[in-house]
């Protein structure tokens, strides 16, 4: 109680310095919460861009298909896969697709691209393709419909209703096949590679062009009941549909660059947090030393009276603990208020791309409980670590030397 009483009163001795030190620590905590919340917000955009736009949360292919999208490496007997997926309670939706690279020709230009044959209804349950339509309409199942990315449309100089010819190789025979479509919709995903190089058409028609039967396709895109299941190796679908012929991969495995960015983002928070707390720690050490130097004579007297060095060190540590706790409360409140505001209205970041994915100009922050539990613990711990050196310095003060100073 004596130590606590002394610590509280000592902090009130120089309120300006105490408040400034608390402001430094508290604002560091606030900054850490906001940076982490912003990183989570950006990751959400990245992950949503992948999982809700085309890739889905996991995909099933024939082994080797992903290497060069060889149309011959199709999934046969897809009804067995469909049966497995239908019986799996963790699967919320899936979309069967065929894929083939080809040459897209308009009346004005030619480009290479990737044709996706999709089931309009099930695709809409897995990805946000219907919402990505910026002109025209989504697929209705009619023959000849095709959706084209807005950048590819610009390149081919086509607009709604214009003709588009796709030339590609048939599966198994490698015979050239051609099909005529009319642009029924233009989409914008914000993913450069997709907007500039992909078209979507109806699954049955695509199968017909490529030469696949109704029980053959190239890909299943999956959506789970909980996205977290996608990255858990123990999830049933990975156990059931990974064979010598089939590979079922989650969205991280399908997007190595993004996986690396996500891994890096974890370190980014750590690095930013470390820098913040090194600065705050130095501030604490500086403030503590200023406070100790001002009180050296007083500490000399206190030690002369019989105060043990450990008790004096304890006093400094208690002062640091109080500073940390009060700073944390202030930092948490400010972090919560600012974080909530940014979660509602977003943080203007300007338009930029990460790994080909356009990040919106406003990023909505995401606050999580761990930011309000773990971060204050780190802050308090690091403040106490920073206070160890000043505390040891105070403990080692020699009374006879201290009593000769500051008079």
């Amino acid at each position, binding site marked *: 109680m004596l130590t606590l009483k002394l610590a509280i009163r000592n902090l009130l001795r120089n309120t300006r310095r105490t408040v400034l030190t608390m402001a430094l620590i508290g604002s560091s905590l606030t900054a850490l919460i906001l940076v982490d919340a912003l990183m989570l917000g950006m990751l959400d955009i990245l992950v949503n861009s992948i999982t809700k736009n085309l890739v889905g949360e996991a995909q099933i292919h024939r082994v080797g298909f992903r290497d060069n999208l060889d149309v011959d490496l199709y999934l046969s007997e897809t009804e067995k896969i469909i049966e497995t997926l239908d019986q799996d309670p963790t699967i919320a939706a899936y979309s069967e697709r065929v894929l083939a690279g080809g040459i897209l020709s308009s009346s004005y230009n030619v480009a290479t691209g990737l044709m996706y044959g999709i089931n309009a209804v099930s695709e809409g349950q897995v990805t946000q393709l219907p919402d990505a339509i910026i002109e025209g309409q989504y697929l209705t199942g009619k023959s000849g419909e095709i959706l084209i990315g807005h950048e590819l449309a610009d390149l081919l100089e086509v607009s709604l209703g214009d003709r588009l010819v796709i030339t590609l190789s048939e599966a198994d025979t490698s015979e050239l096949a051609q099909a005529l479509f009319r642009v029924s919709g233009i989409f914008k995903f914000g993913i450069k590679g997709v907007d500039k190089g992909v078209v979507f058409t109806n699954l049955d028609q695509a199968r017909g062009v490529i030469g696949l039967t109704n029980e053959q396709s190239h890909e299943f895109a999956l959506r789970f009941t909980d996205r977290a299941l996608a990255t858990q190796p123990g999830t049933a679908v990975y156990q059931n549909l990974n064979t010598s012929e089939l590979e079922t991969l989650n969205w991280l495995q399908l997007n190595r660059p993004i996986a690396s960015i996500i891994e890096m983002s974890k370190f980014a928070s750590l690095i930013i947090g470390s820098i913040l707390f090194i600065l705050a720690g130095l501030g604490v050490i500086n403030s503590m030393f200023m406070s100790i130097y001002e009180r050296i004579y*007083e500490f000399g*007297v206190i030690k002369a*009276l*019989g*105060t043990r*060095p450990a008790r004096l060190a304890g006093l400094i540590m208690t002062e640091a603990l109080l500073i940390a706790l009060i700073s944390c409360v202030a930092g948490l409140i400010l972090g919560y208020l600012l974080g909530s505001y940014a979660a509602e209205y977003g943080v203007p970041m300007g338009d930029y791309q990460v790994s080909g994915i356009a990040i919106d100009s406003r990023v909505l922050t995401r606050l999580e409980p761990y930011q309000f539990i773990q971060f204050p613990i780190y802050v308090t711990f690091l403040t106490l670590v920073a206070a160890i050196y000043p505390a040891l310095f105070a403990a080692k003060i020699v009374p*006879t030397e201290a*009593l000769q100073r500051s008079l």
Partner: protein
Amino acid sequence: MTALIQTDNLCRYFYPSDEIVVKAVDGISISIEPGEFTAIIGPSGSGKTTLLHLIGGLDKPTSGDVMLSGQNIAQMSSGELSDFRRDHIGFVFQAYNLIPVLSAEENIEYVMLLQGADAATRKKRVAKTLQQVGLSDYADRRPNKLSGGQQQRVAVARAMASHPDIILADEPTANLDSKTGIALLDVMKELNETLGMTFVFSTHDEKIMKRATRLIHVVDGQIELDEKKSS
């Protein structure tokens, strides 16, 4: 009578550089009896404060022994010395004796708290010592609301309250005006005479010398004259 303090060939040397040796205390052997009102006097730099610090266990001798209440404090560790000072020695310094964030009564209570005295004992002793130094009405005041003389009296009260074997005072009147200094000394002298409390001063204040029952003249770290006066 058994000596309260006994030093035997006590030396404290300082080495500011390899070639220079400052002999602040050089072979001092003294014996102080309980109830003495002793002043260690001498010119500035003579070693009187160093001698007081050695006697009080604030400093360690280069050689020699310091026996206080039958214990050789020269051989004690830093922690043991802290406990010994807490339980056996009261200090009054030149100025800024008090902990600024504590009131007069809390300052007096401080050492008793370190000793682990119970609340009732502390309260009783605080009230008594404040009365003895004439500051009962100033118990709640912090040091910055007390005059220099009042602060020194609180320091005396704090030194007394822990029931030490001896009170060591280093230039206690140096920062006080003459009248306040006399008043403080009268308080200490009365405590010495009525309670038999032992005081040892380091000073060159004539007022203390006049009241002291023994004057130890220190020059260049050695005792030049040990003069006992009849009280």
